[in-house]
């Protein structure tokens, strides 16, 4: 569901003034009851479609249950986890996931920051450029994956055409997606392409909050642009940057669609989420697949805790 995550709730940078009084007396109790009544339907939905299945996933991960099988499931303790962590194939999916996450987030951030800084300056047509940047973000991942698959085609692809026939950077065509050395980097490039604009827009919003007075003051102090960037821009952008980083990390860690559409279950690019789906559905191994799913969940959970720490939910 990486699509959903393209929307990052950012922290409130400045605090809203709170004027509501603490609940007290009968009026307070009535309000409280109303509040719970209003929240209840949503809470029930969350409980039903997320919490209950999550508990089930934990439970299944300790069994050898198979989907649609006549075999009776039994409890196997931590066997699924031990097997997974011992298995080269699974360890390499973990490694691919880490490589994917780290490199795509790294490049997205660097490129996103650069683009945000460029667009932050005043120039004619700035609105147009900003709109153009929404295009990759709006394109469904499946569509961008098949677009790039075609662009990467070893014989007819435009990437090879540009690099070999036009720019003469390479002297022969490369099978970008088939060659195990280039397949994962090629997919990472697609992800970077798709999410960099999003990153840039988030950072742009952060930049716009920095007051220009600070820059003027530093100019008076004789700071040059490089010093300005490191002494003012970066520190003040830090909260927005940190949130965007963690958020993208979470999103990249569970990557499924771009990999699945471009390479299906090919071993050299398989990530943990693709592996989990293969085990759960294609191989009908609910137990083992659930164990892989729990591992994803736990990894992401750590980041979620970090993330929620960064966001002040309540200004007491």
């Amino acid at each position, binding site marked *: 569901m990486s699509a959903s995550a393209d929307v990052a709730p950012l922290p409130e940078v400045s605090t809203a003034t709170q004027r509501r009084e603490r*609940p007290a007396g009968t009026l307070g109790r009535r309000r409280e009851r*109303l509040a719970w009544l209003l929240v209840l339907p949503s809470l029930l939905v969350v409980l039903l479609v*997320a919490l209950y299945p999550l508990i089930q996933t934990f439970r299944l991960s300790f069994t050898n249950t198979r989907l649609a099988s006549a075999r009776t499931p039994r409890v196997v303790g931590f066997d699924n986890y031990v097997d997974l962590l011992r298995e080269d194939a699974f360890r390499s999916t973990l490694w691919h996931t880490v490589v994917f996450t780290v490199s795509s987030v790294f490049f997205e951030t660097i490129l996103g920051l650069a683009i945000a800084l460029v667009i932050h300056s005043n120039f004619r047509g700035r609105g147009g450029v900003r709109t153009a940047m929404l295009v990759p973000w709006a394109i469904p991942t499946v569509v961008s994956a098949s677009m790039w698959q075609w662009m990467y085609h070893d014989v007819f692809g435009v990437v090879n055409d540009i690099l070999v026939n036009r720019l003469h950077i390479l002297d022969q065509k490369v099978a970008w997606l088939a060659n195990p050395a280039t397949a994962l980097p090629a997919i990472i490039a697609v992800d970077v*392409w798709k999410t960099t604009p999003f990153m840039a827009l988030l950072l742009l919003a952060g930049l716009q909050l920095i007051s220009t007075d600070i820059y003027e003051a530093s100019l008076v102090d004789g700071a040059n642009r490089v010093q300005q960037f490191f002494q003012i821009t970066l520190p003040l952008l830090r909260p927005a940057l940190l949130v965007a980083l963690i958020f993208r990390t979470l999103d990249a860690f569970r990557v499924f*669609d771009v990999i699945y559409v471009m390479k299906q279950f090919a071993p050299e690019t398989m990530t943990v989420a693709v592996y989990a789906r293969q085990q759960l559905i294609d191989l009908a191994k609910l137990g083992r697949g659930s164990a892989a799913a729990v591992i994803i*969940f736990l990894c992401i959970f750590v980041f979620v805790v970090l993330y929620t720490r960064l966001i002040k*939910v309540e200004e007491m």
Partner: protein
Amino acid sequence: MASTAATARTTRAAKGLETIAAPRRRPPISKIVGRILFWLLILFILFYTLFPFYWAIVSSLTFDSQLFNTPASYWPSQIDWSHYAYVLRNDDFLKALRNSVVVSVGTVAIALLLGSLAAFALGRIQFRGRTAILYIILSMTMFPGVAILGSLFLMIRGEWFLHTPNLYNTRIALIVTYLIFTLPFTIWVMTQFFKAMPGELEEAALVDGAGYMRVFWQILLPLAAPGLVTTGLLAFIAAWNEFLFALTFTNNYDARTVQVAISQFSGRTQYELPYANRMAASVLVTLPLIALVLIFQRKILAGLTAGAVKG
């Protein structure tokens, strides 16, 4: 480097005439070079973000016989609409399109309804447990769908402690599961919207004797309409683009969405690889989104950074 130059430019622009009049003026030649480099950079950014989509459009309009020409041509010499004709005459694709619309609209409607009620309580009423709920909602916005894929699958088939009908391969199954990522997000963003409204409004109304719910329906909800539009739009895009659940919980065009249809698209006629048709389908599926984004770009930008610029 380029980025710091840009920062400085802003500053200079902000300072206006004073800067220009300042003694430390740069020689014009380097200014021109800088300007050219800056616009080259802008051009490169535009090329980088737009070229792949441009290429998809060109490929979808190219004759099969020319599609596999090497070297490729970057401008179709003749326009061939046959791939679009094929896609639009393809019953399966049209069904998938309808499924996508029904599922996305259904998801958004439910998420907005339930979400704005909850957001009203969370944004306007102080009550015990509010912080805990906000934390739950926030962490839910990042819930990895794959973590519950297997057990959701069992539930959809009706295999859990409740006796529920088998919803496998129905649009309802998708609508319900899509709430996992649309509902928490809706609640979170709408809470920000409600919170940002001035408190006097509602106090005045309450003093007048109007109940909380009347305040909600008659005063706050109309005021939150722009927020609803933004949130709904973002939730729609998220639902429209979803792939994993749609792939797993459907098996034919009764419920399959366009994303899955595209991933399984292949050529029908002989002597062709499916790329041109796939590109045509991709362009068709993306155009409505791009149109929405262009029309509502300001709202989307605001929504994307919800909270960041509010206060």
